[in-house]
Structures are given as structure tokens and as C-alpha cells.
């Protein structure tokens, strides 16, 4: 009898906690998107069912359109750059050379630094009057005078993207390095014997071997980028003039600056649907990998 009940007892606390703090809040969050929840209705307990009214109000907001465009730019730039640079770094570091451990540890530093500390450091480096980023670009001849990177609507989103790429690339590199180390050496040697050049070897031999890990890294980067709040919030708060607003920060503003919780939940629910699709793809990929 004991052997039958034990596993359930052992799993029970985890299931209870997850149902209580993940499943229930998610359901309640989606429900909120269909009620007119504000601070006032929350206090009186008279939130009314309003159907898709919150979604209509979100779609009517011009800032929502801008935030959606920004989210697209933000996600595409981050995913492409992090995967490209991460793969390049993994290929570079996947070789036996003197001092390679030193380089690997150094390149992992951005991943290890706490994100709030990293973001604030970059904000300081972007300082419009004494920022080192301006000074370096000036010395290199790229700029002719200091530029307020975070204060200009034309550059704010891209300036934050650079920080986010800096922070996220090492993790991608780590995932791909682990995958490269599992590619059998004999395959690479056979390719070299056949006279495959560097690029052809990369395209026809290495990439097919690590394609599942690569796809997993892509989906993870996508999820982490959509959910990256700290970088934008602590550098620009989505400004100036919503030029670096993404859907996450927009939902946050609806919810915790205007306390229009229904509208915030509507945006959050749309993000949620997108992420559920991405997660499903991710899980399918993991299962494909286990089937290999």
C-alpha cells in the first residue's frame, strides 16, 4: 500500500504550490481581461463582465500599435543577433587553444552580472554628457559629437537592444557550445578529409548536427526577450514618447500607473497566447531531440 501512496504524497506539495501560484493566477488573469477591473471596482467588488470591451479599447489606442511594432523590432533584432553572435562565439570557443578557458570565462561575464546591475551600468555608459560610450565612439571617429542615446526617440529602442544583446548572447553561446561538444569528432574529420571548406562544413555538417539545440536556443531567446522588462524599464521606462515601449511595458503602465487592470490583462492575455504557441513549439523540439 505504501509504495502506491508515497509518490502522490511526494508530488503533492509541488502540485499544490503550482496550482495555487501559477494555474489559478493565470486563469484569474485571463478572466480579468473580460471585466472592467480598476482600483475603484476592486474596492467595491463590483467589477462587471464587459466581453471584449477591454480588447477594443486596447486596439483603439495608438500607443498599442507603436508598442506592437516596437515589440516586433525588439524581438527580431534580439533573436537574430543573439543567435548569430552566440553561434559565432561557440564555434570560436569550441577548439583546443592555449588560453581558451580564460576567454570563455570572460565572455560569460554578462550572463552572470545581475540584470539590474548590468542595465544601470549601461545607462551610465550611455550618459549624454559624460558617458564612456559617447567618448569611445567619438575617438573611433564614428560620431562627431555626443549623442543622447536613450533620450532620442530615434535611437532609444536600439540603444536598449544593444544592452540586451550583450546580456543575452553568452547564454545562447553556452547552449550551442554544449551542443557542439556532442557532435562526434569523426564526422568533422570525415568532412575535412573530403575537402569541405570552413563555410561548407559549417552549413552542411555542423548546423544539421546541432539544429535541434539551435531551435531550442531560438525559442528560449524569443521567450526571454518578450519577457525582458528590466532592460527597458530601468533605461527608458518605454520613453521618450513611447519610442521604446514594448507590449510588456505597455501592459505594466496600463496596470500599475493607470490602474486599469482590465486593459492591462487584455494586453497580457495576447502576449500569453503568443508565448503559449512558442512554448508548444519548444516542447515539441525537446521531444524531437529525445527521439533522436
Amino acid at each position: 500500500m505504501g509504495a502506491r501512496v508515497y509518490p502522490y504524497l511526494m508530488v503533492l506539495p509541488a502540485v499544490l504550490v503550482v496550482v495555487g501560484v501559477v494555474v489559478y493566477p493565470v486563469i484569474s488573469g485571463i478572466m480579468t481581461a473580460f471585466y472592467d477591473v480598476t482600483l475603484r471596482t476592486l474596492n467595491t467588488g463590483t467589477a462587471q463582465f464587459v466581453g471584449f470591451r477591454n480588447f477594443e479599447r486596447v486596439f483603439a489606442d495608438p500607443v498599442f500599435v507603436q508598442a506592437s511594432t516596437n515589440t516586433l523590432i525588439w524581438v527580431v533584432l534580439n533573436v537574430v543577433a543573439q543567435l548569430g553572435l552566440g553561434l559565432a562565439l561557440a564555434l570560436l570557443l569550441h577548439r583546443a587553444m592555449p588560453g581558451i578557458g580564460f576567454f570563455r570565462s570572460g565572455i560569460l561575464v554578462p550572463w552572470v552580472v545581475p540584470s539590474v546591475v548590468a542595465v544601470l551600468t549601461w545607462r551610465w555608459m550611455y550618459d549624454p554628457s559624460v558617458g564612456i560610450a559617447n567618448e569611445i565612439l567619438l575617438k573611433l571617429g564614428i560620431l562627431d559629437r555626443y549623442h543622447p542615446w536613450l533620450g532620442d526617440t530615434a535611437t532609444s529602442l536600439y540603444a536598449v537592444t544593444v544592452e540586451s544583446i550583450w546580456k543575452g548572447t553568452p547564454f545562447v553561446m553556452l547552449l550551442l557550445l554544449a551542443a557542439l561538444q556532442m557532435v562526434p569528432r569523426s564526422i568533422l574529420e570525415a568532412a575535412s578529409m573530403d575537402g569541405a571548406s570552413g563555410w561548407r562544413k559549417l552549413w552542411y555538417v555542423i548546423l544539421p548536427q546541432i539544429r535541434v539545440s539551435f531551435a531550442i536556443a531560438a525559442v528560449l531567446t524569443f521567450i526571454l526577450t518578450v519577457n525582458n522588462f528590466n532592460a527597458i524599464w530601468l533605461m527608458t521606462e518605454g520613453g521618450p514618447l513611447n519610442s521604446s515601449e514594448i507590449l510588456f511595458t505597455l501592459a505594466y503602465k496600463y496596470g500599475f500607473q493607470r490602474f486599469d487592470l482590465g486593459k492591462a490583462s487584455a494586453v497580457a492575455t495576447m502576449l500569453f497566447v503568443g508565448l503559449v504557441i512558442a512554448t508548444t513549439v519548444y516542447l515539441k523540439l525537446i521531444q524531437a531531440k529525445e527521439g533522436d
Partner: protein
Amino acid sequence: MDTAAIHPRQRERSAPRVVKRSFQLPKPVRTALVYITLWIAFIWAVFPFYWMIATSIRPKDEIFQRPPSLILNGATLQNYIDLLVGAQFWRFAMNSLLLTVSVTIISVLISVTAGYAMARHRFKGSVTLPLFMLYGQMFPPVLLLIPFYVQLRFLGWLDSLWGLIPVYLSYMLPLCVWLMRGFFSQVPFSLEDAARMDGCTRWQAFWKVILPMARPGIVAVATWVMIHTWNEFLYASTFILSDTKRTLPLGLSGLIGQYTTDWGVLMAGGVLTAAPILLVFFILQKQLVSGIGGGAVKG
């Protein structure tokens, strides 16, 4: 031999060989190129970290000197003294420490038992439950934020460090269980059976045989939770309202002034906040990298 006589596939394959030979750079040049690229990547990765430390040990007038100088002319601990003299920073550190220790202990306890049961026993849901856990990890925090706010308000736990514990569990526990199941499934359970045969109780076999073997995994999960709790900003900044209950990341962001910011003190705080994480990471580097990488990719 006439080229036309060669099988087209073979011709295609031999063509790049010729191209490759003629374009190949000599080996020392290639090695030099690799090292130059590595140095560029290294400097790119480490520079902001260097700049943070450099700013934190500069005298105030030098920090705001224009143009800024890459190289330090003199060092001072004044920024650290300014930061640590007030009681604020110590309080933030204590709050962070308290929260980190509690969340780590709770999530390790819960995830060890659940992970073990999922890996060891076949029962209803032993296959779907772990996948469900992984799904839980992917939920966007912004969707959870609002229900948490409503719930914490209802319970009167807004602006309380204890109220943050369940919130943080939502963000850590699912992945902890998933990773832990991965680690336990690599433990050879025949050893446990052998221990039971030798007269150990179920508990003794678990405690003395299985747990020591799963230790690297447990260390990796515990460290992962510690680092993420220590660094968490979004939930803390939304649910903590009073100054005395702030955590370190919150305290740091609070040092940004509306008009002027004392960057020397702020960067000193950054160094002190990052130091424990860096220390833990470089001590446990091997275990962590294989643990996280293995857990995420291999499942």
C-alpha cells in the same frame, strides 16, 4: 580525364577543394585572426563590468570630468564609505538575504521530493506532470502580475517580504521540479533497491544513497534559485512600497535621481550586489554550466 566523364556529384564535390586551397590563409595568420576576434569579444563582454568597477573607485570630480578617461588616475574608497555608512544599504542586503534563503530552502525541499517521485515511480501523471511544470515556467510574468496584486491586496500581504515568497515560488518552482526530475532520472535506482535489501528503511535509502548521488543537481538547482531571487526586480518593485522593505536591486534602482544621480555610489552598490553572485558562480562554474545546459537541452 575529361571533366564531363566525372559523375556530376563528384565534380561538384571536387570543385570547392580547388577554391579552398587557393584562398587558404597561412596557419599563423589564421591563428592570429582567431585570437584577435577572441580579444574583441572578450573586451566587448567585460568592458561594462570594468567600467562599473572603475567608476566605483573614482573620486567624485573625476567621475563627472569631461571627457571621461578610460584609465584610472587615482583610486578611492569614498563611494563605498558613502554607500555603507547609511543604514539603508545594510537593510536592503538583509532583506535580500532573508528572502533568498527562504525561497531557496522552500523550493529545494519541494522540488527534491517531487522530482524524486516523478523520476523514481510510475504513477498516474508521472509523464504529463513534468511537462506541465515546464509549461508553468513559460507563463509571462506580466499576466501573473495582476492576479498576484489583487490577491496580495486581498490578503493584506502587499508591501511585505513574506508576501513575495509565494510570488517567487511561482517563478522558480516549476523549472526546479523539471530540472530535479532530470537529475534524479540519471541516478541508478538499483542501488536504492540494494540498500533496501540490506535492511535500510525507505527513508534511509533515500537519504544515504540517493541524495548524495543527486547532489550536483541539487547544488545546481539551489544556486539557480539563489541567483534569480537575489536579482529579481519586477515583482519586488511592484509589490514592495515602503523604503525599509526594499531588496538590493530595488535599492539600487532607487539611487537613480530625477535630476542628478551619484553614479559613483550607485556603481559601488552594483559591485557589492554582483559580488556574491560572481563568487558563487566562479566557485561552482563547472557544476552549474553542465547542470543548466544539460537540464535545458537534454530535459
